[in-house]
């Protein structure tokens, strides 16, 4: 079977660790990773718990295909109650850490309590120790990984850790592994920090064996890899241009949220696009992009490895940033660039490096800066308060505030609260471009109507990865739908949400779904896992996972009114482009979506739905 059937439970208050058998009944109903870890979490914590209190728990979880030869089979999720939203938080990462944890013999690690002083968790197969991390506290992600590799005298250990922002409680602090892959959203890093937990260090040499049908597994995974290779998006677009392939596409259709969503097209998009990353720079004649990198097991390899311009003002005196590093990905290029009107691609890469180095989410950070700049232009915030002049388009303000946020200095402390709290503090809650307190990603809900519903109903707050209807509405995968209409979108969003919940629970990357349907993943699961893994079962499972998360949020206090978009998207029409004149039709879509979901008018699963899903 594809599970190790073991979970590691760590209580930081008592400083105890113990091995427990995996609940296989739950694995059968919730698969792994997102679904299974959420099942554990909702069964063990009070939904009303303060996310940053010792009573919250945080779980690192792999899926049944993590650590196998299935393409992209290296994912892990971090699941907890999130401090940015107060909702369920589930953040997914690639790199190599997830597979290493599985190779060490663990399906998941459940962390409870709070250590009285900084600690890290060392896992070498069965040998688990809670170790002192006082010498690591105050160190960046990059310093932490280097120090731990050196202290363990093993360059092959994998590290998943927080930077200074996680320690300081920045509400969108990330957990970073392998230097620049991150469980980036919803502030999972702040929860680790609140527990005085700096890092997990793992070395696994046991591997993953005992698949249900190894021969069939090899055959089917090879076939499916071929589909990824031959698909235009996963075989060419993503490896060549990365997710940044979208920058010009989304801008052209007028769905590029610009300057805190005041505009829907960014005149500087071309300068910060994938194409720009390929072009030689004036200063040194080199392109920013060095090459691409795959995560563990990934045959797509969308990851960007870049080198910043050494003469750029941000790094001219800081050689430590001159080496190759992760970025830019589309979401970061958008949030650090378009959301603030900044078109200096080197400044964006610098800010992105700081996000990796000190572990904070570039989406929420960049979008928060968008709000800061709007408040500055309105005269609500001043140069004195911020520490720099901060009009839209100021690269200097962006990089200054990235430094301040990374270090927890000055106005960076306010920026670290996220846009919702920041905008409330300055009397303009309507200017926070967020849902449930989490900032929007890089698609405008006026130009792509399905994404508005995606954001409004996402269980972890605004997020594109919960139902990426861009696939259908823009790219035509699996079928093209009109991005400007609300018609049919509730059903589309529901279908994407349920399918994605399964992908996120399997150990695979959601980017495979540009080429794969769930029916391409099903035979891989069937060959790896014992028992029946029919499409019917997976469809129902996706729906079950979605409703389980929803029930947790309902119990945490979320209601119908939280499934909404900021007034700007409902009243200020797109000014230009193909979506000109449109606002989001979210209010029309919600009732239909609730009905399709089997929820009452307040967004609560009905007794019948609960029974049907076996919740």
């Amino acid at each position, binding site marked *: 079977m594809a599970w190790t059937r073991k979970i590691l439970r760590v209580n930081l208050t008592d400083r105890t660790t113990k091995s427990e058998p995996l609940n296989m009944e739950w694995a059968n109903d919730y698969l792994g990773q997102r679904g299974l870890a959420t099942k554990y979490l909702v069964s063990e914590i009070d939904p009303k718990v303060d996310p940053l209190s010792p009573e919250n728990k945080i779980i690192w979880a792999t899926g049944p295909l993590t*650590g*196998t*030869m299935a*393409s992209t089979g290296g994912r892990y999720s971090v699941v907890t109650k999130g401090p940015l939203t107060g909702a369920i938080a589930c953040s997914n990462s690639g790199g*190599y850490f997830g*597979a290493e944890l599985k*190779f060490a013999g663990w399906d998941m690690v459940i962390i409870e309590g709070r250590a009285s002083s900084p600690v890290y968790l060392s896992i070498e197969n069965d040998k688990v120790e809670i170790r002192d991390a006082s010498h690591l506290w105050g160190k960046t992600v990059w310093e932490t990984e280097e120090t731990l590799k050196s202290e363990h005298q093993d360059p*092959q250990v994998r590290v998943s850790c927080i930077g200074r922002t996680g320690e300081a409680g920045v509400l969108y602090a990330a957990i970073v592994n392998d*230097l620049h892959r991150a469980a980036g959203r919803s502030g999972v890093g702040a929860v680790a920090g609140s527990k005085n937990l700096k890092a997990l260090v793992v070395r*696994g*040499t*046991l*591997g*993953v*064996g005992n698949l249900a049908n*190894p021969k069939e597994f*090899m055959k089917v995974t090879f076939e499916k*890899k071929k589909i990824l*290779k031959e698909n235009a998006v996963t075989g060419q677009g993503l*490896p060549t241009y990365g997710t940044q392939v979208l920058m010009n596409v989304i801008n052209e259709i007028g769905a590029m949220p610009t300057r805190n969503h005041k505009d829907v097209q960014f005149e500087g998009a071309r300068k910060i696009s994938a194409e720009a990353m390929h072009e030689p720079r004036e200063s040194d004649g080199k392109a920013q992009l*060095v*090459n*691409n*990198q*795959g*995560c*563990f*097991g*990934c*045959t797509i*390899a969308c*990851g960007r*490895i870049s*080198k910043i311009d050494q003469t750029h003002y941000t790094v001219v005196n800081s050689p430590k940033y001159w*080496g*190759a*590093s992760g970025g830019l990905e589309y979401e970061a290029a958008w949030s650090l660039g378009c959301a603030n009107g900044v078109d200096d691609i080197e400044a964006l890469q610098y800010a992105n490096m700081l996000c990796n180095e000190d572990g904070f989410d570039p989406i929420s950070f960049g979008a928060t800066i968008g709000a800061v700049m709007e408040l500055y232009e309105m005269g609500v915030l001043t140069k004195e308060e911020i520490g720099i002049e901060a009009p839209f388009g100021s690269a200097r303000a962006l990089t200054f505030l990235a430094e301040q946020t990374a270090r927890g200095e000055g106005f960076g402390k306010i920026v670290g609260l996220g846009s919702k709290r920041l905008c409330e503090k300055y009397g303009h809650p309507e200017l926070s471009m967020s849902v449930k307190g989490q900032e929007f990603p890089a698609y405008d809900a006026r130009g792509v109507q399905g994404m508005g519903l995606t954001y409004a109903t996402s269980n972890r707050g605004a997020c594109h990865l919960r139902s990426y209807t861009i696939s259908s509405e823009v790219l035509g995968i699996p079928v093209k739908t009109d991005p400007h209409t609300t018609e049919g979108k509730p059903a589309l969003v529901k279908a994407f949400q349920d399918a994605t919940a399964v992908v996120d629970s399997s150990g695979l990357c959601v980017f495979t779904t540009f080429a794969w349907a769930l029916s391409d993943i099903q035979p891989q699961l069937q060959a790896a896992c014992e028992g029946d893994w029919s499409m019917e079962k997976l469809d129902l499972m996706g729906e079950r996972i979605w409703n389980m998360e929803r029930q947790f949020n309902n119990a945490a206090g979320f209601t119908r009114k939280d499934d909404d978009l900021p007034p700007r998207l409902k009243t200020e029409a797109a000014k230009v482009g193909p979506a000109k004149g449109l606002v989001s039709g979210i209010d029309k879509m919600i009732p239909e979506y609730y009905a399709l979901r089997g929820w009452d008018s307040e967004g609560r699963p009905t007794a019948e739905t609960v029974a049907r899903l076996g919740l």
Partner: protein
Amino acid sequence: MQKSLHIDPSKCTSCLQCEMACSFENYGVFNNSLSRIKVFDFHHTGAKVPYTCTQCDEAWCMHACPVEAIKLDKDNGAKVVFEDVCVGCKVCTIACPFGTVNYVAETGKVQKCDLCGGNPACAEACPTGAITYVDANWTGLDRMRQWADKLGNQAA
């Protein structure tokens, strides 16, 4: 025709499919720590380099072995470790200038690439063509073709 493994680091994305294929072929598990091919990720430069045994003709490991546990496979030129003969003395690991023969504590024997009997699993699994199994006399053919293309086609 003798074939050999050929590596083009510029095509490697560090996905580690080769390492998993190797461990699966030889041990029936996905376990990168048991792989005979290893990908090195030099994060400071961005270089990713797969590395394994190149099957030297005058193989240091074979000559150093005191019990003749490493033998030539005449069909494909591989130098193959015979586990039933190997005594785990590790002298070969010292003799090999490239580090590509290594001790396995779990078995008490050494292991190295044996070209999977002439059908290397790593090359088959590599999604980008960074690892290929090609005519040993013409490992440079692809690169020659690229330059010839530049000379004859792109320049024209």
